[in-house]
């Protein structure tokens, strides 16, 4: 067991294990802090700044991002001060300037009391540049198919040389962790496509389920699962069974492996 530390969040005295982030501790107490780039399954990167809180006591009185700030003995956290609300609203307005039609962002804006944004950029897309897709592809899947290019206003998610990716395995985890649906996966017939707002990132032919014959997963993806989950145990998948048939049969199949394909924990 990790050592427990005492801290205060919004006047409430709580205990939390060392190493936990302020965001997690607040969540455990049922205190809502808006987040966008944070995802339970990924290392925090602190890029969206939405989760800011005001801290004092154990550290200098300042504003910190709660998804990165760790709890500390004697830390005093305030999540709803005037200053935090004002700054948070500004951050949302700025994000809305780029993604004015993102439903998820509009919902968050509503929760934080933002009705409209003072900023208009002209060029609009739903990507909030949170980097979840890049992180999941790199750190969890290990495919390294996605990357950032350019800086500032031109920053965007793409592939190497901005062409169809050779490294994408078509798992769709990027689409799954994307908070706004800016990166999408689409299965049509026996073809899977992965898109961003400006580009088809990858294309795959889907392999058929050995039970029902429905096309359901790209070969590269199934191979990766074989590689990672089965071969290490000296096993090998011989039949590929789609999630539907797995439900009916209750037997192990590639999609029961805890990454991609519907098995990632998803939090908003």
């Amino acid at each position, binding site marked *: 067991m990790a050592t427990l530390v005492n801290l205060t969040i919004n006047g409430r005295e709580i205990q939390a294990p060392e190493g936990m982030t302020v965001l997690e501790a607040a969540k455990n107490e049922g205190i809502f802090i808006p987040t966008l780039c944070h995802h339970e399954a990924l290392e925090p990167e602190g890029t969206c700044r939405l989760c800011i809180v005001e801290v004092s006591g154990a550290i200098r009185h300042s504003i910190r991002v709660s998804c990165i700030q760790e709890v500390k003995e004697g830390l005093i956290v305030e999540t709803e001060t005037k200053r935090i609300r004002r700054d948070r609203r500004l951050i949302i307005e700025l994000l809305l300037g780029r993604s004015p039609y993102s439903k998820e962002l509009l919902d968050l804006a509503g929760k934080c009391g933002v009705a409209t944004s003072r900023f208009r950029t002209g060029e609009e897309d739903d990507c909030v540049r949170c980097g979840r897709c890049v992180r999941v592809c*790199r750190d969890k899947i290990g495919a*390294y*198919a*996605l*990357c*950032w*290019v*350019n*800086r500032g206003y031109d920053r965007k998610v793409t*592939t*190497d*040389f901005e062409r169809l990716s050779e*490294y994408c395995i078509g798992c769709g985890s990027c689409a799954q962790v994307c908070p706004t649906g800016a990166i999408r996966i689409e299965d049509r017939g026996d073809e899977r496509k992965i898109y961003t707002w400006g580009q088809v990132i990858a294309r795959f032919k889907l392999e058929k389920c050995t039970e029902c014959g429905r096309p359901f997963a790209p070969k590269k993806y199934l191979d990766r699962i074989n590689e990672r989950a089965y071969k290490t145990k000296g096993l090998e998948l011989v039949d590929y069974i789609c999630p539907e048939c797995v439900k009916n049969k209750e037997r192990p199949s590639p999609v029961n492996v805890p990454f991609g394909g519907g098995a990632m924990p998803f939090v908003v």
Partner: protein
Amino acid sequence: MDVAGVNEILEKFQGVKGNLIGILHEVQNRYSYLPEEELRYISKRTQIPITQIYSIVNFYNRFSLEPKGKNVISVCLGTACHVKGAGKVMDALREKLNIDIGESTDDMNFSLEEVRCIGACSLAPAVVVNEETYGQVKPKQVSTILKQHESSENG
């Protein structure tokens, strides 16, 4: 692709931690840009994913995916230079060379670039040609500057 050339550079950085930027610099200097094939080869040999390399190449102004001219002209369009009329200097250069920002002349003699503050604000507006810095540049002086580099090449 110039395997021997890239190998030579890679050898030099063997075992150096954080060597990617150094490698890219040398490749850029040798070929005047970073050719795709060379980058993919570097990725294979260093085990650094090509997406990471591509990201870095895109991030730094210094790196280019297109061949650059023999003389690279960088016009500072940072705040101070902008206020002091760098835009006009840039326009003069564009007109004179008949190319846009980010392009090179047909004879590959000159490339034109914009940069954001090179830390020479007291010299604003500043223009850098290769390693040489020109301060308080007026649009009129553009031809003279270009000539210096044309002739230095012939002589």
